């Protein structure tokens, strides 16, 4: 103890008293005992870390039942005065199992703490607070910092994948700064509004993609009604709560993490080379009785590669993408504090480069994407008086990003669609705009041209988030009562600039006077355009600011074996969305929660939210969302012996109502659906002189208000259990849930006689259901056979399936055409039955005729479809539900790893099931418009020879310039639908922790070196594209990237 704590005077005594008061968070009502019991025995000891035997500083040592305590010093040593031999010392440290020791006659108590492998004492972040996992009755999954940091990802959302049950994170693209995953909690339950969950950062709805993973302490996913009801109109899609790290009392702990990684584009389309392209393009021409496009001479050149200008063979993937591009991420954080002031300060840097090969054709324009982000956070906690503590969270993220002016989508589309014959990328250092021969096979804007001419689009974003919260304990008034408040102000600003410039470009022409072959392959270079000045595009700005306040009364008490806690909380939020020129979005709500448990055995929670938003009509703005949950910990019962096999078994269930108002703030739908709206109307001209005709001002009906507009309601049920076995080595948690979503905002089947159907706003008529189950399993053990080998295995699996119950669908002729009764987002299409293989099949007068087949009828190699209604005609009436929606029904992950003598190895596999995708455009059609690229997969096309030889056939007969609305083979059908399920080695890591003995002389507390990777291997049936590609994409998508990363973490 430091000098100032010695009891020299009355004043010092008071000082100590104050200090102890501040220290006491829960047990301060016991203070009188402190005075009553004079210290009698002094106990000393050393606490070590069981995993490596090193002394462990910062362990709390408290006399059980009092607030008297100390912490271990840098050498793991402590000294404490205890009142009696009966006293029990409680040793706690974050991340370690707590230990108890009765003093008895000992004066030296040494012990080692083991890493906390069990989760019972864990505190889980819940809505507006936290609860012990042991007494939790809701369905909540969470993941901690250490696990999140294993994935070298740039966007926080992508680190969630595979780590928890009940959350689906789909990453559609790998573009720097644009690679956030789409999140869903327990799948999709609505077809009207957004199905995205509410995401809170430190209790406030905020942007989260820009949060540095190093700042995150835990992420909780609240899944059932019990966990989410308090969020009322915003909670129905589940809630994700991101909680940032806070300082712990102790000496400054400096932690430096540095990551150097490489991104490597994966699952790129495999395109035909020039020779194959020319050969197959000729075949396609032959199939439509057109003249072959390429002569034998051309084909020979493509084979021999001896005329690189006029008979080029460009691998566009090779030409366009760098194989490896850097991605660096660094973080420095310092945390620590005294008893009454604690801090966590973090600085982060993310630097991610794009994958385009841009060359050096101009100086000032780089269209290659990049994303650089700087994060600074300062989380401060102050205990100002014994009853009053204050926390301040400040964070700022500043991002600078750069994109190709044409947009990566368009650019990738061009790259994908360009044939290998379209002409060289550059010639003698200049970009080639066009090559004479290639004219027919080049696209109007070759990729490099497109990349340069459209310049770049740069964004500067700053996102400032601040909140201040205070807690005032009112124990003096009523024991266990406290009031707390929070105010937050966030400010976001974005500036976008675009610039472009013409590079020097040439066109290559044939030499008409060439006499010899060698002359003929040398082009005449014609300047297409000279390098031009930089052209400034539009600069745009957007900004928003959010203000949030909450005020709460909390009460908790324990009367004998009855633990009761209660919360009453009011919130108000206002979001100004400056860029939209809109009125601010406002929310206001009251939250109530009562939890009760008896002997930690019988658990009951009541949660209720009463909240509203200005998006609804007067008197209909507020809704009440109650939920109830019960839990029963069987292992606390005397008749179920708690033994080393069965350590914990809890059954829990919940039932409640939550709302979703996400549809109503959607700009496409418009705000204030309840109001009628008139707006400026059309023109009509009056007068007699043609040149001076004048229109009169007019006003027109724009929307018809729907005064009944309300939020979606979700009636959710959940039943689950948590089971811990074998000395807490194995834990299993499983949940079964169902949900009925009602009041889904959906458009009505309005007849034309009403006027323009678009006048009518949507109404709350839709109904959908969702059900599913999920489980999480984890196993930890130490293998004594191999000394000190700790290993762990984890698995999670989630399934959810929804169904449209009602959507005021137009009457259909055939029952199978109804969307109602199917899954949300269920694809429809013709059912393909393979190919017509013989002329006899095609000539069969009884075969169904497709309305898309040519007048001359089908030929062998065309796709055969099922005539669902048996009318002899294949048309849109034969479309049935095919495959699965684009959001997977099944998501799962399994991971495992071990630690041994400082080595750590871990892997995470992750996958999805029951999901489909459908590619269109250049991703589907070879030789699009007769001249675009074709994939290698077309080699498995139908030809009479290949059919006769029994070779695998996965593609219909080739034709040039097919259309997916007019050509029989390319009509929307199950043939082109792909099973998009996949399994990935999402993440693997090998790390080495240097022993502290080695490090101690260097003044380093710990040093961890690691090598890890993301998206390392993918097993999928989707060819040429990443399986997570969005359905109905034409392939114009920035590729997914694999990341190889090395890094180090040093702490002082």
């Amino acid at each position, binding site marked *: 103890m430091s000098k100032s704590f010695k009891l020299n005077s009355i004043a010092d005594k008071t000082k100590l008293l104050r200090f102890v008061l501040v220290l006491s968070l829960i047990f301060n009502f016991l203070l009188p005992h402190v005075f009553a019991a004079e210290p009698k025995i002094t106990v000393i000891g050393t606490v070590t870390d069981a995993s490596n035997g090193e002394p462990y500083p910062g362990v709390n040592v408290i006399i059980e039942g009092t607030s008297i305590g100390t912490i271990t010093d840098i050498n793991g040593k402590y000294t404490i005065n205890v009142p009696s031999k009966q006293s029990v010392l409680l040793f706690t440290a974050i991340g370690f199992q707590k230990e108890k020791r009765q003093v008895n006659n000992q004066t030296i108590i040494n012990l080692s703490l083991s890493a906390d492998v069990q989760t019972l004492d864990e505190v889980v972040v819940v809505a507006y607070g936290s609860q012990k996992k042991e007494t939790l009755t809701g369905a909540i999954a969470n993941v901690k910092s250490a696990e999140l940091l294993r994935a070298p990802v740039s966007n926080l959302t992508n680190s969630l994948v595979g780590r928890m049950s009940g959350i689906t994170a789909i990453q559609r693209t790998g573009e720097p700064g644009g690679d956030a995953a789409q999140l869903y909690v327990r799948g999709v339950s609505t077809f009207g509004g957004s199905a995205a969950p509410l995401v809170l950062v430190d209790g406030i709805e905020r942007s989260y993609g820009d949060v540095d993973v190093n700042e995150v302490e835990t992420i909780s996913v609240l899944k059932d009604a019990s966990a989410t009801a308090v969020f009322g109109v915003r909670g129905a899609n589940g809630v994700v709560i991101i909680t940032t790290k806070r300082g712990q009392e102790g000496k400054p702990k400096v932690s430096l993490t540095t990551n150097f990684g490489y991104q490597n584009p994966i699952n790129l389309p495999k395109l035909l080379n020039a020779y194959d392209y020319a050969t197959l393009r000729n075949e396609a021409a032959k199939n439509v009785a057109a003249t072959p496009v390429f002569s034998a001479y051309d084909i020979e050149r493509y084979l021999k590669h001896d005329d690189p200008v006029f008979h080029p063979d460009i691998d566009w993937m090779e030409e366009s993408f760098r194989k490896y591009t850097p991605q660096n991420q660094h973080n420095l954080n310092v945390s620590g504090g005294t008893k009454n002031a604690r801090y966590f300060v973090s600085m982060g840097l993310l630097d991610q480069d794009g994958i385009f090969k841009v060359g050096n054709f101009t100086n000032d324009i780089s269209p290659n994407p990049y994303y650089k982000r700087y994060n600074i956070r300062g989380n401060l906690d102050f205990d100002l008086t014994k009853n009053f503590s204050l926390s301040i969270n400040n964070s700022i993220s500043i991002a600078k990003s750069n994109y190709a002016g044409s947009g990566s989508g368009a650019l990738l589309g061009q790259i994908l669609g360009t044939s290998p014959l379209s002409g060289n990328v550059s010639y003698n250092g200049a970009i080639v705009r066009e090559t004479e021969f290639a004219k027919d096979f080049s696209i109007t804007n070759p990729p490099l041209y497109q990349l340069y001419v459209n310049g770049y689009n740069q964004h500067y974003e700053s996102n400032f988030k601040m909140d201040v919260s205070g807690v005032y304990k*009112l124990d003096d*008034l009523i024991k266990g009562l406290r*009031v707390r408040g929070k105010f937050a102000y966030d400010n976001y600003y974005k500036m976008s600039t675009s610039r472009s410039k013409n590079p020097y470009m040439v066109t290559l022409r044939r030499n008409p006077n060439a006499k010899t072959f060698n002359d003929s392959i040398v082009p005449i270079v014609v300047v297409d355009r000279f390098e031009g000045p930089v052209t400034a595009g539009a600069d745009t700005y957007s900004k928003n600011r959010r203000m949030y306040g909450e*005020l709460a*009364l909390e009460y908790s008490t324990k009367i004998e074996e009855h633990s009761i806690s209660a919360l*009453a909380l*009011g919130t108000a939020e*206002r979001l100004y969305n400056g860029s939209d020129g809109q*009125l601010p979005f*406002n929310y*206001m*709500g*009251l939250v109530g929660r009562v939890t009760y448990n008896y002997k930690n055995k019988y658990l009951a929670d009541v949660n209720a939210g009463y909240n*509203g*938003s*200005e998006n609804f009509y*007067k008197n209909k703005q*507020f809704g009440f969302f109650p939920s109830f949950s019960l839990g029963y910990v069987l292992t606390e019962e005397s008749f179920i012996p708690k033994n080393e096999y069965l350590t914990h078994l809890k059954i829990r269930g919940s039932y409640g109502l939550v709302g979703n108002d996400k549809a109503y703030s959607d700009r496409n739908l418009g705000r*204030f659906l309840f109001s*009628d*709206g*008139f707006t400026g*109307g*059309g023109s*009509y*001209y*009056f*007068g*007699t*002189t*043609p040149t001076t*005709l*004048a*229109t*009169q*001002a*007019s*006003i*027109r*009906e724009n929307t*018809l208000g729907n005064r*009944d507009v309300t939020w979606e309601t979700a009636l959710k049920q959940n039943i689950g259990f948590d089971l811990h076995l074998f000395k807490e080595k194995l834990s299993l948690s499983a949940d079964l849930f169902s949900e009925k979503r009602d*009041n889904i905002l959906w458009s009505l*089947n*309005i*007849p*034309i*006689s*009403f*006027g*323009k159907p678009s*006048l*009518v706003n949507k*109404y709350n*008529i839709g*109904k959908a259901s969702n059900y599913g189950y999920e489980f999480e399993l984890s196993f930890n053990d130490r293998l004594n056979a191999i000394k000190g080998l700790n290993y762990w295995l984890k698995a999670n699996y989630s399934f959810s399936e929804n169904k449209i119950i009602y959507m*005021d669908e*137009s*009457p*259909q002729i055939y029952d199978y055409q109804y969307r109602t009764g199917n899954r949300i987002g269920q694809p429809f299409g013709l059912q393909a039955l393979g190919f017509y293989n013989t002329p006899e099949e095609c000539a069969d007068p009884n075969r169904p005729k497709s309305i898309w087949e040519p007048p001359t009828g089908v030929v062998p190699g065309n796709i055969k479809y099922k005539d669902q209604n048996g009318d002899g005609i294949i048309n849109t009436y034969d479309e049935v539900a095919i495959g699965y929606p684009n959001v997977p029904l099944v998501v799962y992950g399994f991971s495992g790893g071990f630690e041994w003598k400082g080595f750590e190895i871990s892997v995470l596999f992750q996958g999805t099931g029951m999901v489909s995708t459908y590619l269109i455009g250049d991703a589907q059609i070879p030789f699009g418009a007769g001249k675009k690229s074709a994939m290698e997969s077309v080699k498995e096309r139908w030809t009479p020879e290949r059919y006769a030889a029994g070779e695998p056939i996965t593609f219909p007969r080739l034709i040039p310039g097919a259309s997916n609305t007019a050509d029989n083979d390319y009509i929307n059908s199950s043939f082109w639908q792909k099973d998009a399920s996949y399994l990935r080695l999402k993440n693997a890591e090998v790390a080495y922790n240097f022993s502290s003995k080695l490090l101690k002389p260097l003044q380093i507390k710990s040093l961890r070196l690691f090598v890890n990777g993301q998206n390392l291997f993918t097993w999928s049936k989707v060819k040429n594209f990443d399986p997570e590609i969005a359905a109905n994409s034409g392939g114009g998508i920035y590729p997914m990237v694999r990341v190889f990363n090395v890094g180090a973490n040093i702490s002082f």
Partner: protein
Amino acid sequence: MKFLKLTGVFVIGLSMIISTSCVSDFLEQPLDSVITVDSVFNNPDNAMKAFYQVYSTCVVNGLINGYTTGDWNDSGCRDAMLSNVCDEGTMIGNNAPKKYTNGTWNATNQDEFDIYRVMAGIRNAVLYVENIDKTPYAKTATVDWTEQYKNQCVAEVKILRALMYFEMVKRYGGVPLMTKLPKIVIAKEGDKNIAKVDMDGTRRSLKSTFDYIIKDCEEAIPYLSNSFSAAESGRISKGAGLALKARTLLYMASPLFNTDTPYLPFDGADSLICLGNYDQNRWQLAADANRELLEWASAFDYKLLSDPALGPGESYNYATGLQLDVRNKETILMDRSHTRLTAGCMMARMLCPIWYSWGNCAQSVNIDYIQKMYYNATTDQPTTLAAEGKLTEFITKMKAADPRLEAVAWFPGSAYSKNGTWTAAGGGEVGKMYLRVGGYNGTLTNVGNGGTGVGMGEPAGPYFKKFINLTNATTAVTECWWPIFRLAEFYLNYAEALNEVNPTHPDIITNLNIIRKRAGLQDLKLGNPVYDQCFGNKDKMRSYIQRERAIELYGEEHRPFDVRRWKIASQPGVMGGDFNKIVFYENSTTKYWDASAKRYNNTDLVSYKIEKYETRVWKDNMYLYPFPQGEVNKGFIKQNPGW
């Protein structure tokens, strides 16, 4: 002390309650953020805005002004005049209208008539009629709102609404009627919220639909104004009301509808597409109504434009192409949904064969139509061309035909515009043409004076030029408006109706002669072959009137509906059957066109040949249009037979 603490808790509790009870402020939508129906009709100024909105949405517009540029573009059919879907013309270079003639027209590809736009217009009218009584009488800076003026405005709105229903009934037969402003009502059915429209969304009988139009007209006509100030010119006059009623009654009397046998069997729903009986009196009502309009027109100085300085052909040309010319007093109502068609407008791009900067389409006037309709001006005998002949013969026959031919068609040897300014771009007297150079199978080559001709392809020969031939060649601004009611129609209407009830009535001849006189033809009188053969013979006179109508109202969206209501669409060569083209070619290697001298060497070196161009498909279900399939799918509308 304890009291103070309790007070503290109480204050905190109270502040929380207060913070949520001031929701009325926090969550309130600002009042000024929306305009409601009440704020529109609570003062005359705003009410007039709603009134003008009815004008801007109840539009009948047959000109091309851009298919994809907005809600209110009614362009005949896609980027083409409606003439192309009947025997009047053929589009060259734009296949969009072909679907109406090649048999692929169906319930999902109809792009000629936007029923959604029309219903929006009707709804605006109903909204106006239902709410206008809320508007207090007052004099404001812009309007003197009195009961009389209100009645007049309501009357105009009713005519506009009736006009929209007329546009529907002639295409679809009976349609749903918006008798009051429909609303959405939510009903609980079991555990479902079912949204219903509180109106009958099904089709009404053809008779109810026609009666509704007539009722609107009759209610409105007494309140309509006979004339307007220059600034208000363009509003619905009493004449427009009378004209709509007259035309509607003529349609009701016509064979397609005035029958107990629909054009196709329609299981139990005949009343949707025919009137259920033949009633001779319907012709009488039509004749009376048309006579009433003609009397009104003569009382208010409406007459056909016949200017000696222009001559007969150009008088007719100005009457349809320059509606706001001071000389033009024959337009009763025209479409004014645009000030004028701007430079580069679709009208010029898609139709003008010599539009010099862009555009790639043109419309031909069918050679069959010319031979069938445009008789020799002096002999009143058909203009018959031999299947093959010399260009000179062709030119001679064209020049001798009804002068209205040269006002609508531009053919080799004619001027694109007599007094317009297109000459500078190639419309000289011996105009441009597409010529097969080097013989009958030679290359199709654009020859002629001035800029590059567009409209490559066949059938070439006579090009359509009505409406656009007076376009300013420098700015390409087209000052033409769509004639909705042009006086000439009603002379023909009256004659047609009267012939059905009283074929010897002298008014038939009197009225037809008004048309013929302006056209530069001799009067019908004893000794004239038409008079001699037709007068008093109901059938022959009917045929003559039909032919006269085909010429006088060429291109004004009458023909496609006239041939339907007359029930002659199924006759070969009208809507279906073989259609011919005319090909011009150089006889020999001696160049007809001397490019260096920029002149024609010898007209006789060119021949023409008329040969089959295409076979058009007509099916009787086309007598009425299909409702859009999406609408039928909604379950309210019964589709017309055969679709």
